[in-house]
């Protein structure tokens, strides 16, 4: 059945810059903010914006992501007509078919899926951003301008502009030039990796791009430059509000801390809810010896130690005398008696032994040597063991270097 607009969510990347955290799961399935996974943000944005058909393109270690999405019911995306669909690469006649070669190729391989809904517009999303955004406002701007492609952009500080894909625009926010990570940026409008395309236009460019053997079949590298070169109407849509790419360990930690400070990213605010699949567990318990300050926690937590400036996901246990500061604890983590965890990210079900020390305060270390400490999901730190700042361990307790 025809839909005016559907969304395609690119969730197949490995997320290699999250290292041990994505050893067994795709990046969009990485826990965030105590109750969420990264993919909850784009999925909830779709639902809140009124987009009820979402294709999720998966490729890398999709099992946990698939079971998390399930029927899509937590996001109200279990629909009779539309809803959420998992789209892995598949074989076609003549033993053809291939892995998704790039972001554009992933959509190319699913032209058949998009055509089933015959949409006017397709919103292309990534699975590694934390933000609240009404995509339909962007679609509306796209319609009003009669654009072929609209790219949402964010004003970033000028000194950071060279880290982003930068859009140079004219007085009406038409994109005149695109520069990937320019040394001398001419503008500070950074692409957020969110695109609206008029489907028939995009369809045509995808087919052309596929027949170009030199193309890496990527939106940023190939499709956008080709459309610009061909003189298509390309609009920049200015987004205001919180947006963060959580593709690195530091940015993931930062975004969790941003959520704590409840500034621009206020998840308690109820007008634009972020939905998630909620495990069944009793309310959090704070024991007689618990000291909790400027932290969030969620159901199933059991805290008797001290927790300062930290994010506790479901079923985290912090025993008496343990001290957790400036850290992100993913579901099922246990910090035993007397252990100290500072400036760390602990993956799912990590166990920190009694009296162990993980990470440290930046004040106490040479700034060149200091960094966030990370223990991958399932890792076990023995009683009394020390994991220095800036160290990363995988589930087998092997050190992994960035």
């Amino acid at each position, binding site marked *: 059945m025809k839909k005016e607009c559907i969304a395609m969510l690119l969730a197949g990347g490995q997320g290699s810059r999250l290292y041990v955290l994505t050893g067994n799961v795709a990046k969009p399935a990485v826990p965030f903010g105590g109750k969420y996974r990264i993919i909850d943000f784009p999925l909830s944005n779709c639902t809140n914006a009124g987009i009820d058909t979402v294709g999720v393109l998966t490729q890398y270690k999709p099992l946990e992501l698939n079971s998390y999405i399930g029927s899509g019911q937590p996001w109200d995306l279990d629909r009779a007509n539309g809803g959420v669909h998992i789209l892995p690469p598949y074989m076609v006649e003549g033993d053809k078919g291939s892995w998704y070669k790039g972001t554009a190729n992933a959509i190319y391989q699913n032209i058949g899926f998009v055509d089933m809904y015959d949409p006017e517009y397709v919103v292309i999303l990534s699975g590694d951003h934390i933000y609240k955004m009404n995509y339909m406002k962007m679609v509306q701007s796209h319609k009003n301008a009669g654009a072929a492609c609209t790219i949402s952009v964010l004003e970033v500080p000028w000194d950071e502009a060279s880290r982003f894909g930068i859009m140079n625009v004219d007085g009406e926010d038409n994109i005149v030039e695109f520069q990937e990570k320019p040394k001398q940026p001419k503008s500070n409008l950074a692409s957020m990796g969110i695109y609206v395309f008029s489907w028939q236009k995009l369809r045509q460019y995808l087919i052309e791009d596929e027949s170009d053997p030199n193309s890496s079949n990527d939106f940023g590298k190939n499709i956008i430059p080709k459309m610009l070169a061909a003189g298509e109407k390309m609009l920049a849509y200015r987004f205001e509000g919180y947006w963060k790419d959580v593709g690195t360990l530091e940015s993931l930690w930062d975004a969790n801390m941003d959520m704590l400070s409840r500034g621009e990213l206020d998840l*308690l605010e109820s007008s634009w809810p972020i939905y998630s699949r909620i495990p069944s567990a*009793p*309310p959090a318990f704070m024991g007689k010896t618990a000291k909790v300050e400027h932290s969030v926690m969620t159901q199933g937590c059991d805290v008797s130690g001290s927790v300062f400036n930290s994010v506790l996901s479901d079923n985290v246990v912090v025993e008496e005398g343990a001290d957790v500061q400036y850290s992100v604890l993913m579901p099922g983590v246990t910090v035993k008696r007397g252990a100290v965890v500072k400036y760390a990210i602990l993956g799912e079900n990590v166990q920190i032994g009694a009296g162990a020390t993980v990470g440290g305060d930046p004040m106490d270390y040479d700034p060149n040597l200091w960094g966030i400490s990370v223990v991958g999901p399932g890792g076990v730190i023995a009683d009394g063991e020390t994991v220095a700042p800036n160290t990363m361990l995988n589930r087998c307790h092997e050190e992994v270097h960035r």
Partner: protein
Amino acid sequence: MKGLHGLIFAYDKYPALRELAEHRSPASVPFGGRYRIIDFMLSNLVNAGVFDVGVILHGNYQSLLDHLGSGKDWDLSRIHGGLRLLPPFGTVQHRDDSTFRGKMDALYGVRSYLENIRQDHVVMTDSDLIINIPLQQVYEAHMASGADITCVCTAAPGGAVEESTYFELDQDGWITDTIFGIRTPRQYRSLDIFILSKQLLLDVVEECGGHDHYSFRNAVLQNMAGQLKIRAYVWEGYSAQIRSLAEYYDRSMELLDPAIRRELFPKDRPIYTKELNVSSTYVDPDGGCTNSLVADGCTVEGTVENSILFRGVSVAKGAHVKDCILMQNASVGRESVLHHIIADKNVKVAERRTLIGHAKYPMAIAKNSEI
């Protein structure tokens, strides 16, 4: 087919629950920070593989219907079976009193539903029970014993004596007498969970309906004791029957004991409830929270001690909440002091208010009140 069918009686009214049951049936009274009382029995059934469940309702059930919805939160929204809500059918004769007089009355009212039960056995329970019991084991014990009816009971003290049913057991676990309305408790208190075959259920409903006998206890457990083999299943774990405000308060506060929480919330038998999308709970640098159960979506900027906070509660700076139960979306203004208070949903306590109840007589504040 073999197996159990669940029937939950959710029509009882307990005036002693006062404000808590003013706008809702006792089954849907909030409990334990994020649950309703009926969640425990629904979850027990689902955890025992019972996916056909009828809930018998009568009056004041708007809140319960809102809570249960399609049953999907308990995995009971199924193509075949699943959750069936059973308000009184047209078949029950009209009477002036506002509810069923007893279980047989209620069962007679849903007779056509009972006839269509697919399973060969039925487990009947009340909806005032806080328990996490592996019903599969009770069912297996019932089948192994050759009993006609198995009644779950406890030897633990508790419950309102005059409202409780007690059993006398012989040394082999058969029930020799059923007693109620007495002042001195006997050893085995009924938890009002019964297992019997569908056929026997239909027979006794027919028999009792024909004689206008409305009490299961009286008409079946007592009067048919000669014909039926009635057996006890003595439950040794935790249980609580919530029938009065004092009991509600005491049993809620017991949840602060980790041993009781471990019994009620084992990882392999979760208690399900209607999910709400709320954020994590935030504890401010100026706030403090000890010996308390805190559900999601709360903002704690004041001090909270020995309390239970439901989802979305806010406690403002300088406020002090001690020995309290604050239900969903209740808010406490700056520098207010609350001791031994049960604040129902959406209660708003303004700034600098002092509300003090007593452990023996906690003060309940009705839903939506502003103080």
